[in-house]
């Protein structure tokens, strides 16, 4: 989240789209209800289903899964046509005045630079126009035809209310009613927030969708404001923290993984340290060398010296155009190219797309190590044929599966200390309450033992790749069982000579005199102690920032981009909602997202970006500088905006045995998957109370479709996709309204997740149905809006 849960109560309008917090984040949803009660805030809910959130909204709009960009593009169009944007904000805090080079354009589904043979874009025509000093040319009036503002207007001119209604499937009146409420926040004294979840991220165009939301919020002046922002509710206790700590292509702190053509540390730093694009851009990423060298010192300790590039050569490198992410390694695994998988608490058979492909992939491994609290579908994948009943009759029997499997019992949350980051970016420390049961061990013991045993084998026997393994530091008081206090102190970092903990990332050095495991966590464990364990309940601004409760990254900042809450002179847009105040010499309130003593005019408000301002137009995304509506990979219609380029041309497509895509003639209905409030993901099927409250899998079928098919409530139905099928009782409902799209009726079917073939209660895995289709930037699978057929079982 740019803002946070407690901040939602500052909003005047709350758009919930791609999420259902009343059901899935019930405790956080209280802040929505507080805003309604205290400020008479309006709640707008846009969702394929009339959800529990919709039930308490002021304005509900039904929609077809996968058409969110059309809806948001329609809002952008509505705001521009009706002159409802916050003009001063847009001119001061966004790249609206920036000029783009001659030659940029969009036609028939492609931006300029499309290369059919490569299946990608040459992005040179998307770049800014630079002056002789290398800075972007601007037109403060926004009137230049190549200004970002005019290009934005032109791009979204097609997203008229009629076009939106035709794609989304709502009525034009429903769209306009929501648009009027949302656009009403484009005034200095009104703010609107957006809450989203997996309904936005599980698409083949997810990242562009969220960019569309950012554009909308920037036009309305809602970024940096209390009660504003773009807020991911996040569905798990620490997926924010795990993202902060890296992914296949990321080092901790969002530093990029080195590429093979970055032969030296200097090459790497040159390629990854941005240059300021405007004279007033602070361009905080210019500190990349300090972040990177301090990380290498944390990784390689005494083995990292200036002479050996601080151990840079030890890091694994990826090829320039390679992708080693989830979609790709499971695909490679399904073709027998992997030997081993190690899973610390993850259950890909249940939560990955296309279950048949997941099972087949695991059966090709030589070995599998699973560290878990409970037996899972992944650990016992080799039992799928027996336990999974009719769903996996084509899958191998245990005797045929040669994968050697280890299932290691691990401590659960209550038995471990350490920190979780909630959606608000609050890093909250927890303490172990009791030891793990029986012979179960903590994660750090298991990781350490695996690594130390391997190290000692290499020390005894030698072997390939010994150096990167042996040089990785594991310099803990008890290396076989590091205390997480020690690890947290390492993540924060310290001065190596004085051994003093760092106070802030501004103390980092690039000469190897500081070490730091993750620069955005600098300040989380200082000489004053563990800041993440703080329990202060004071709220001096009255805005729900709670600066002394836990610690928030970065720098204990509670509202990101908060400098944008004030105008050019530093005067807040809304005096009642001012997270920052400028007293002539310094900023006070929230931790400023700005230099603490820099005058309001001296720097751009978006200090992380080389532009110094927020980007309405972003040339660094794969699919184009502006989000465009593309249909899901499986769709009942061709894209009404450009039939020939119907789906996202950059979305990865696989062509293996299990990668079948269905067509509307065989699979006429749109399906979505979702959670229920009584269950948490695939865990609580092991817990008695959740299992008793929601015992059975079911399928939500619209009344009109049920009538057509002769299905009554409780009848057993089969839902089939091109990949597999599920079966369960029908819940016939008014909650999913049939939609009119391109002149025909489109039905949608809702299917809850939570069941599987291992647990106190069992049922079909919904991912039997879902396709191996992914967003090209984030790699998230398309669980919302795939095609199925429905029949009585």
């Amino acid at each position: 989240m740019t803002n946070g849960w407690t901040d939602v109560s500052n909003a005047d309008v709350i758009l919930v789209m791609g999420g259902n917090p009343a059901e899935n984040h019930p405790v956080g949803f209280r802040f929505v209800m507080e805003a309604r009660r205290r400020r008479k805030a309006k709640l707008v809910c846009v969702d394929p289903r009339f959800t529990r959130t919709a039930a308490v909204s002021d304005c509900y709009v039904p929609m077809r899964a996968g058409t969110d960009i059309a809806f948001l593009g329609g809002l952008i169009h509505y705001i521009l046509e009706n002159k409802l944007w916050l003009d001063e904000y847009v001119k001061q805090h966004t790249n609206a005045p920036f000029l783009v080079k001659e030659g940029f354009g969009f036609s028939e589904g492609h931006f300029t630079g499309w290369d059919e043979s490569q299946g990608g874009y040459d992005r040179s025509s998307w770049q800014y126009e630079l002056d002789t000093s290398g800075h972007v040319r601007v037109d403060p009036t926004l009137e230049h035809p190549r200004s970002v503002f005019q290009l934005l207007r032109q791009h979204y001119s097609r997203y008229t209310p009629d076009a939106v209604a035709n794609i989304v499937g709502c009525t034009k009146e429903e769209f306009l009613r929501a648009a009027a409420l949302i656009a009403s926040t484009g005034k200095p004294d009104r703010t609107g927030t957006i809450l989203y979840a997996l309904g936005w991220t599980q698409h083949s165009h997810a990242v562009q969708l969220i960019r569309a939301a950012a554009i909308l919020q920037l036009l309305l002046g809602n970024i940096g404001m209390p009660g504003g922002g773009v807020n991911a509710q996040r569905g798990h206790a620490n997926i924010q923290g795990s993202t902060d700590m890296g992914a296949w292509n990321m080092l901790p702190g969002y530093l990029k993984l080195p590429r093979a053509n970055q032969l030296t540390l200097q090459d790497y730093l040159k390629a990854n340290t941005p240059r300021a694009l405007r004279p007033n851009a602070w361009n905080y990423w210019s500190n990349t060398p300090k972040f990177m060298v301090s990380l290498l010192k944390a990784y390689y300790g005494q083995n990292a010296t200036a002479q050996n590039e601080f151990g840079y050569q030890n890091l694994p490198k990826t090829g320039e155009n390679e992708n080693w992410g989830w979609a790709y390694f499971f695909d490679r695994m399904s073709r027998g190219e992997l030997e081993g998988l190690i899973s610390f608490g993850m259950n890909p058979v249940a939560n990955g797309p296309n279950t048949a492909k997941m099972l087949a992939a695991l059966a090709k491994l030589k070995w599998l190590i699973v560290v878990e609290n409970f037996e899972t579908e992944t650990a016992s994948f080799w039992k799928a044929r027996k336990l999974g009943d009719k769903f996996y009759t084509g899958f191998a029997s245990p005797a045929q599966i040669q994968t050697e499997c280890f299932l290691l019992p691990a401590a659960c949350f209550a038995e471990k200390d350490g920190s979780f980051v909630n959606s608000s970016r609050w890093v909250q420390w927890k303490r172990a309450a009791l030891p793990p049961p029986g012979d179960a061990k903590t994660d750090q013991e298991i990781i350490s033992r695996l690594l130390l045993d391997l190290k000692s084998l290499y020390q005894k026997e030698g072997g390939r790749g010994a150096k990167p393994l042996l040089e990785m530091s594991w310099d803990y008081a008890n290396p076989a069982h590091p205390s997480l206090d020690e690890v947290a102190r390492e993540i924060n970092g310290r001065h190596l000579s004085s051994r003093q903990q760092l106070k802030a990332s501004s103390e980092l050095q690039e000469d190897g005199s500081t070490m730091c495991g993750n620069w955005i966590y600098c300040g989380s464990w200082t000489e004053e102690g563990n800041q993440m364990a703080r329990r202060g309940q004071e709220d001096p601004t009255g805005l729900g920032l709670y600066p002394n409760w836990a610690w928030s990254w970065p720098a204990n900042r509670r509202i990101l981009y908060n400098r944008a809450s004030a105008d050019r002179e530093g005067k807040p847009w809304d005096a009642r909602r001012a997270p920052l105040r400028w007293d002539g010499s310094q900023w006070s309130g929230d931790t400023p997202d700005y230099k603490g003593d820099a005058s309001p005019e001296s720097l751009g408000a978006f200090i992380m970006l080389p532009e110094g301002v927020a980007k309405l137009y972003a040339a660094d995304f794969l699919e184009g500088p502006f989000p465009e509506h593309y249909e899901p990979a499986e769709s009942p219609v061709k894209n009404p905006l450009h039939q020939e380029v119907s789906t996202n041309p950059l979305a990865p497509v696989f062509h293996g045995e299990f990668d079948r895509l269905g067509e509307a003639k065989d699979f006429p209905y749109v399906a979505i998957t979702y959670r229920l409030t009584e269950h948490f993901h695939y865990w609580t099927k092991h817990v008695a109370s959740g299992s008793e409250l929601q015992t059975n899998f079911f399928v939500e079928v619209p009344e009109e479709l049920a009538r057509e098919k002769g299905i009554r409530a409780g009848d057993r139905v089969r839902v089939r996709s091109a990949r597999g099928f599920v079966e369960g009782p029908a819940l016939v409902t008014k909650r999913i309204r049939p939609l009119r799209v391109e002149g025909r009726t489109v039905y949608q079917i809702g299917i809850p997740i939570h069941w599987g073939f291992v647990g106190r209660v069992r049922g079909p895995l919904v991912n039997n149905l879902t396709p191996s289709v992914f967003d090209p930037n984030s790699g998230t699978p398309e669980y919302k809006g795939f095609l199925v057929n429905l029949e009585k079982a």
Partner: protein
Amino acid sequence: MKFNSAAGSFSRRDFVRAAALATAYGFSLEPARAAVRELKISRTTQTHSVCPYCAVGCSVIIHTLGDKARNIQPTVVHIEGDPESPVNRGTLCSKGISLKEFVVNERRLTRPLYRAPGASEWTAISWDEAFEKMARRMKDTRDRTFEEKDSQGRTVNRLTSVALIGGCTDTNEINYLLGKFRFALGILSYENQSRL
């Protein structure tokens, strides 16, 4: 009663007394209720933790008994919302309120299990034997497939035949250690729940 906290402690008895006084002059049943509640958890150790489910980040208080005696495994007797948290202010949802059943659950794994190639059931294995086997498998794979250089002769030091995935309740510190583990081995295919 002790309170496991980095930042001071409070006595539940004080809290209950204050609540009882506040209602002592009306016909309220609160003092009686408070007394019952006090009995249930009066001897527990209380530990600050955070709910492991969604990302609202509700603070919880875990009550345990048996941790002051020798030779007794402590157990959780109650888990409740932390009234001091600005996020949940003492409340929990239907899942959070039943967290005790997640922790104290006969389905929990309590010993390492092993499944040999082609076997149709799990069998028990000691930790030592499991670690010995796992280290050997990892080394064999790594010795067979580790790439020091790519096809163009550039140093890549990578292991693409092994993938590592992390779960959604791995703490920051565990994620950080998994990162070090991953880079020590040279693993590129590293993902976690946030990808899905």
